[in-house]
């Protein structure tokens, strides 16, 4: 009797494990049909005007018009980590994010590359307290940025290495916060500094914070954001991927040619505020330059490899982008 009950229980446990295994396998396989455009497509980016080219593509419905049979979903996620997770799990097909997560993921075996870099961006280290003037003043202070693997975190370490002689000198102070929260925290004095990005650095400057350092000083002009897909996705949907690259090129051209119109698009996307003019000022600010040409990827990789954030090095910038980007002569 007892033995039978035990046996039954064991069988139940085994069945459950097998069922779960099968389920996991099924979930992993479900993606899209091989060849041609995908049946379903999820594109994810984060808040910020750095993603303006994608917002234009979304607003103009270029992809939807080209592939009417494809079900397309646009997602705005608060963190780069959420986008990384989504791409790894296969829930997100096109994910947009900074150079930091791209390189961390690439080095750890996430089979992804930039299908289209979006811009170069000068990232500013902001402080509000007038007594904090230089990087040396930041020892023991609390510095907000999106995450310890973000491009901002790598920039901070470079600054620490150059100015303080130790890349990890300011690590203790790193606080993970998304930019809108960090801006509030900086302005209300809860944190001491914020390594941020456009447009938050512009807004903070207007509201009384000052710039301590700029990323271009340490890395030269460098790529900031880009749209990533996996090698598998690129292989299966090569035509779609190439078209996506062309869409980004077209959107960037529109931003350059007609910033007023793009500002309107961005304002509508943001729900009506701030003003049109504000958006135009931001997208025309030289701290942010929209381009599909990757710059400084290898320099970033070398630095991250040196401080132990990544364990392997790309042999060339081409290893981090797909063929449509090759003609841009990046670095």
């Amino acid at each position, binding site marked *: 009797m*007892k*033995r039978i009950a*035990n046996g039954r229980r064991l069988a139940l446990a085994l069945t459950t*494990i097998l069922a779960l*295994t099968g389920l*996991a*396998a099924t979930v*992993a396989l479900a993606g899209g049909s091989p060849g041609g455009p995908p049946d379903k497509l999820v594109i994810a980016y984060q808040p910020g005007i750095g993603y303006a080219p994608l917002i234009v593509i979304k607003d103009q419905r270029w992809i939807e018009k080209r592939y009417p049979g494809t079900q397309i979903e646009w997602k705005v996620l608060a963190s780069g*980590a959420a986008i*990384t997770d989504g791409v*790894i*799990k296969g829930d997100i097909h096109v994910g947009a994010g900074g150079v930091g997560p791209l390189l*961390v*993921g690439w080095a*750890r*075996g*996430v089979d992804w590359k930039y299908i289209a870099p979006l811009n170069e961006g000068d990232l500013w280290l902001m402080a509000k307290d007038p007594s904090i003037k230089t990087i040396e003043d930041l020892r023991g202070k*609390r510095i907000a940025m999106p*995450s*310890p*693997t973000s491009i901002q975190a790598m920039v901070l370490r470079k600054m620490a290495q150059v100015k303080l002689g130790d890349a*990890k000198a300011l*690590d*203790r*102070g*790193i*606080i*993970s*916060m998304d930019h809108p929260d960090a801006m509030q*925290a900086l302005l209300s004095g*809860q*944190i001491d500094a914020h390594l941020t990005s456009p447009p938050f650095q512009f807004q903070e400057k207007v509201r009384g914070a000052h710039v301590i350092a700029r990323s271009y000083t340490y890395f030269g002009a460098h790529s900031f954001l880009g749209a990533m897909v996996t090698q598998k996705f690129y292989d299966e949907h090569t035509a779609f991927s190439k078209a996506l690259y062309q869409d980004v090129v077209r959107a960037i051209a529109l931003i350059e040619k007609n910033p007023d119109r793009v500002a309107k698009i961005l304002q509508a996307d943001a729900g009506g505020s701030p003003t049109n003019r504000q958006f135009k000022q931001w997208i025309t600010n030289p701290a942010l330059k929209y381009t599909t040409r990757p710059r400084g990827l290898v320099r970033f990789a070398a630095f991250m490899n040196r401080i132990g*954030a990544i364990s392997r090095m790309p042999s060339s910038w081409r290893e981090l982008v797909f063929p449509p980007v090759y003609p841009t002569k990046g670095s």
Partner: protein
Amino acid sequence: MQSSSSPAAATALSEPLRRPRVVGWGRLPAWLRFTLLLAALVGLWQAYVSLKDVNPLLFASPRAVAEAFVDGWRDGTIPRATWTTVKVLALGIGIGALVAAVLTVFATLTKIGDDLLVLLTSILNPLPGVAVLPLALLWFGLNTNALLFVIANATIWPIAINVTTGFRTVNPTIVAVGRNIGLSSRRLVTDVLAPAALPHTISGLKAAWAFGWRTIIAAELVFGVSGADGGLGFYINNAKLYLRIPQVFAGLVTIAILGVLFETVFGVLERRTVVRWGMKTVPATSGGGEG
């Protein structure tokens, strides 16, 4: 009555007492049963990972986890994170216990204190510890004090409820005996009420530990203190950000081991006190060989 021994009765008596038949598994000692089960689970886990070709960015093999675990202990990152977490937790529970003691004394001595405790407990106890974190961050800033506040808040209430109940349910006779043998009020509290309420106090501390432990890990996951100040929750989160999945698992294993360790400490404490004194029955988990 009559000693007329029928053959049936004779055999029934002469036959040795039949032990209930146990199947092979149940006859093994408890530690072996659990070790075997654990080994089987780990084996299944390894088999799943090796046969199924799972994405190493989503799931780690036991082998990789073991390596990450050993490396983490060797290079000092896991012990440092563990120490940070345990230190903050101990301090938080200490503060919680102190506040709980004050509240309990107040509640035991006065009716208004009792009402206050009932009110505060019914409002604040159901709040998940982490829910208070945003407010704590606002009040204390992004530092350890916010964590301490959250832990203290998560631990005050279970301790206060249990100790108050313990004091209130002390058998009046034993208190009368205490007064009868000539104890002062102070010694009545320390020598009679406190030991008599010990089972409740231990339950309170156990609950506080469980709440505090869950709360601090959750809070550290949310709370972005970095670098050398990060505890286990931060360790796990950081490992995840760097996509070091075996380290994520190693962090979880550390948490599980610590959990078992603390349970064991409380178990020993209980066996040496309230179980030994017959104030609490022995939990019938690790009993011998019944099938």
